[in-house]
């Protein structure tokens, strides 16, 4: 698998924007935000399709091995409101 290692510093407005995006819950970490930004950019340019992003979610949910019943899901949704 192809691998790229990034090590760089963000300053000023860029650093503030990163903090703001994380505080709003759009990402859990700086690293993940960079990944999200690359995916967003690539999707805008048509290099990644929403369908493939959707498929990744379904694949990872399946891999998690967690299976919830309809009743479980209804209850879970009530809990997060």
């Amino acid at each position, binding site marked *: 698998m192809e691998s790229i290692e990034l090590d760089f510093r963000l300053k000023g407005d860029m650093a503030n924007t990163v903090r703001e995006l994380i505080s709003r819950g759009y990402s859990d970490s700086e690293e993940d935000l960079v990944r999200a930004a690359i995916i*967003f950019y690539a999707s805008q340019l048509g290099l990644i399709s929403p369908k493939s*992003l*959707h498929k990744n*979610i379904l694949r*990872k*949910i399946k891999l998690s091995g*967690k299976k*919830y019943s309809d009743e479980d899901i209804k209850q879970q*949704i009530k809990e997060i409101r």
Partner: protein
Amino acid sequence: MMLVFLDSSVFIWGYNRHNSNSAKTLELMNEGKIRVVISEKVVKELRTYFLKFYNKDIFSEILYHITSTAIIIPKEEILGEIKKLKNKIKEKDIEHLATVRYMNIKYLIAYDEDFEIFEEYITPKNFIKKLDLKTSDTDY
């Protein structure tokens, strides 16, 4: 293109049940047949749900999907609408409805009976039906 608001329940049912009407609605979003609008509260609810019942990795994938496909309306933009709805509806529903009214959206798609009092509310099944598409057996 039709602008619709998707509640977190549609994403949750759609990701959990890939043959549901919610999943069909997400597919319409993927294909660009509908333009989806969500509020920051939807992102927060999805975050809470997937961190609690799945894991961080799955939530990251969900963020990649929704930030690439949906329009997210920041809370600051809808403060005026929130003020109008204050004390008229349940606190938990305000941000969703304020976004719908602010963007002048016809359909608030959700699977939650608490939304039944809103004229914009429609279930995923009824939405798919409205588009003359084949529905799944499930209501969600």
